[in-house]
């Protein structure tokens, strides 16, 4: 039984590490800040989730699990918030919703609907 | 009733040491909550209590003929922290209490809260930071644990730096930032030395460390390196000449009450720790060439500080540079103490006391003069002698003590230093001491002659200071001037609690015959010659139009001196000199072992 759990831990943590690697490659390779945010917030949080999942069998019953999952949830919360803040800071002006359509220069058709309401 | 109260205060024994530690701290905390108007009086009341406690400690040490000890929390030193008040720290506590009481009375007017407001920035900041300085200094004088002394030094620095920038002018902000960064550099080096001591011996208590170091036959290299780092860190905080870049603008820019405290007391706390390290922790250091290095720096400070002071055109900067010079005297005692005699240490302590009173009086007097005239240009001082006779008199008396004329404290210091220099055959220190006295006389007589010369503009001061301020300035100046008349037993107090020096009581013996007529005259006639010289220069200047520079108008060496001073006060150069000093001290201490 413990062999299976150890095996599960190794597999899960390795998968997590691969997702971290993907996130880092995304950080280095992607052209601009917004796309890099995707790489970081998506890949790293999933990677961390897998690592936490893999480590769960290694810790003592309820308290250890709660601690690890709390680490993951906090990382998710801070990742999402920082992603939002960075996106607001670098958002290109032409995505402003209250600009008249013809004033939008060569905006790619599927530009995300900016939900700015300041 | 008072003497009864005083008596039972004295029989508290060791617990007495907690009062000077906690009184300022409680004052600092309550001052934060107390409404502004009562702050000044509350501060005065606590300063008086503090003076009583310091007097009780001095009396207890004197009668008990031994240092007072106290273990905080009841834990024995290697684990806990101990307090100790030997003769030296008792005298320092007393001086601090006297000077701070003077400053407290002086500052009542400048930092009082106007009627309409509940509180102002200046009054809250000044009084709370004054308590912070007082708490830090008392802990430095009483602490026996190297890390507790570090925290006390930080409390002192964090209370002193905002005082420099209290007026908010741009150059005082720059001066405060430079003071803070250089003081932090010093305290980090001090901490580095502390960690090496702990790494080697596992304790930070000075007496225990001293026994371990004395007992060890071959000192591991970490110990001299630690002593060198701590010494240089404390030199940076004491502003000894190559590391003096922060002192002149900081002390000249601060409000007068603050610059009095900074010059008289704050600079002496880090010097006191150097005394603790060199005389208590590792007395063997005194016999090394490292002591000669400190002596050489002291001599350089005396000559350089006085010469640049001659060049100054603003009164406060002149006094700040004079502080640099007087600090130099403090470092002459290290080479002179090599022979193991306690005379040099007594001279150092007397210099701290005399300079504290004299310099506090001079800075406060300069503050009154600047307030009355609206500026502190030395050239523009004429006529102030009539407008503020008491203040100019106090300024002059303080100056006489710095020169070292009898019966002042400075005279005692010069007598002891000269006798010790001749006694140990290091005659060059004798020359430096005399030269310093003459240079001080030069710029003091120049300033006094300006102040007492005929009134060029009507002598209606812009703002007449209160009589209380003038009297307290005069009182402090008289303290410095009449220090020589103290009974010689007060000088012996300094040697209580010190390891039994070979010639205990030698200092008071030397001072006993310092009052013979020929000695008095041999000290006086060079000063009279300098006075005549200054009069001649002033007379020649009055006939020619005004020159902006100080005494020597167009002298080439004068400008070269200014450039040298400006060069030395650049941050990278001062940093480089600090590193060179660390290397020099480490080398002399390692080789000398």
């Amino acid at each position, binding site marked *: 039984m413990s062999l299976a759990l150890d095996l599960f831990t190794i597999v899960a943590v390795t998968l997590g590490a691969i997702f971290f690697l993907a996130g880092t490659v995304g950080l280095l390779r992607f052209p601009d800040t917004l796309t890099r945010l995707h790489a970081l917030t998506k890949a790293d949080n999933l990677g961390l989730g897998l690592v936490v999942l893999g480590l769960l069998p290694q810790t003592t019953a309820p308290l250890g699990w709660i601690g690890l999952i709390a680490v993951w949830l906090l990382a998710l919360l801070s990742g999402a918030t920082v992603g939002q803040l960075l996106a607001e800071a670098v958002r290109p002006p032409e995505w402003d919703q209250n600009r008249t359509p013809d004033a939008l220069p060569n905006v790619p058709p599927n530009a995300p609907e900016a939900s700015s309401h300041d | 009733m008072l003497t009864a109260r005083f008596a039972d205060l004295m029989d508290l024994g060791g617990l007495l040491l907690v009062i000077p530690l906690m009184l300022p701290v409680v004052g600092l905390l309550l001052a934060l909550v107390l409404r502004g108007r009562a702050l000044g009086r509350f501060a005065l009341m606590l300063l008086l209590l503090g003076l009583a406690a310091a007097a009780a400690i001095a009396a207890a040490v004197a009668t008990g003929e031994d240092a007072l000890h106290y273990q905080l929390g009841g834990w024995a030193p290697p*684990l806990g922290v101990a307090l100790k008040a030997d003769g030296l720290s008792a005298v320092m506590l007393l001086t601090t209490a006297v000077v701070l009481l003077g400053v407290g009375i*002086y500052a009542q*007017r*400048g930092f009082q809260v106007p009627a309409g407001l509940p509180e102002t920035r200046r009054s809250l900041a000044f009084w709370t930071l004054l308590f912070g300085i007082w708490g830090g200094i008392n802990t430095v004088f009483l602490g026996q644990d190297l*890390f507790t002394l*570090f*925290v006390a030094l*930080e409390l002192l620095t*964090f209370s002193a730096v905002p005082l420099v*920038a209290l007026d*908010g002018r*741009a*150059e005082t*902000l*720059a*001066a*405060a*930032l*430079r003071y*803070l*960064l250089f003081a*932090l*550099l010093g305290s*980090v080096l001090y*901490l*580095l030395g502390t*960690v*090496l001591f*702990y*790494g080697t011996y*596992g304790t930070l208590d000075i007496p225990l460390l001293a026994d371990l170091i004395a007992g060890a036959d071959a000192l591991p290299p970490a110990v001299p390196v630690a002593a060198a780092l701590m010494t240089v860190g404390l030199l940076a905080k004491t502003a000894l000449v190559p590391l003096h870049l922060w002192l002149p*603008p900081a002390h*000249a*820019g601060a*409000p*007068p*009450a603050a610059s009095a405290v900074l010059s008289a007391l704050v600079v002496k706390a880090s010097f006191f720790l150097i005394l603790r390290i060199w005389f208590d922790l590792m007395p063997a250091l005194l016999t090394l060439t490292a002591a000669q290095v400190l002596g050489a720096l002291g001599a350089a400070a005396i000559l350089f500080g006085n010469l640049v002071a001659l060049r100054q055109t*603003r009164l406060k*900067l002149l006094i700040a540079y004079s502080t640099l010079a007087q600090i130099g005297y403090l470092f002459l005692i290290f080479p002179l103490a090599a022979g193991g005699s306690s005379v040099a240490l007594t001279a150092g302590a007397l210099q701290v006391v005399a300079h504290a009173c004299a310099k506090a009086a001079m800075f*406060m007097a300069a503050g*009154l003069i*600047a*307030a009355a*005239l*609206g*500026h*502190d*240009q030395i050239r*523009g001082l004429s006529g102030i002698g009539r407008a503020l006779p008491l203040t100019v008199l106090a300024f002059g008396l303080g100056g006489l003590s710095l020169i070292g004329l009898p019966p002042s404290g400075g005279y005692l210091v010069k007598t002891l230093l000269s006798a010790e220099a001749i006694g140990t055959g290091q005659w060059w220190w004798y020359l430096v001491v005399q030269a310093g006295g003459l240079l001080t006389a030069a710029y003091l007589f120049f300033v006094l002659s300006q102040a007492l010369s005929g009134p060029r503009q009507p002598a209606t001061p812009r*703002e007449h*200071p209160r009589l209380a*301020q003038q009297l307290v300035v005069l009182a402090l100046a008289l303290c410095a001037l009449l220090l020589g008349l103290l009974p010689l037993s007060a000088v012996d107090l300094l040697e209580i609690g010190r390891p039994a020096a070979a010639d205990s009581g030698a200092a008071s013996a030397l001072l006993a015959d310092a009052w013979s007529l020929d000695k008095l005259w041999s000290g006086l006639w060079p000063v009279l010659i300098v006075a005549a010289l200054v009069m001649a220069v002033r007379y020649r200047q009055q006939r020619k139009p005004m020159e*902006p520079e100080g005494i020597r108008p167009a002298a080439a060496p004068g400008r070269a001196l200014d450039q040298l001073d*400006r060069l030395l006060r*650049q*941050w*990278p150069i001062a*940093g480089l000199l*600090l*590193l060179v000093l660390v290397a020099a001290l480490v080398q002399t201490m390692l080789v000398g072992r």
Partner: protein
Amino acid sequence: MSGTTLFGLCAATLVGLGLYGLICQPGALRKILAFNLIGSGVFLLFGVIAQRGGGVLALAGTGRDGDPVPQALVITGLVVAFAATAIAVTLLVRLAETSARGTLEGDEPPPQAPPDEPRP
């Protein structure tokens, strides 16, 4: 060559690097950063000595690691270093607002015009 000694060498390098930054960097904010570097180097030395001293405890079987006294000193030192950084940063921002520069040079007192001295 245990890990602890490695951290000791790292601490010594940090102190050297911080000293260089504190002396040579013109910007005052960079000097404050360099001061924090030296501070962390010195505290690391405290940690190395605490870890080395802790071996005694492990022998005594109490299981707790490290000598608690240097660790307590480091915690106190960190808080003091934070207070120092807070004052230095506020002073620097105020200096930059009033005289539009972030460096320490150029502090000669104003030209010879008599300054209007505020009340003592």
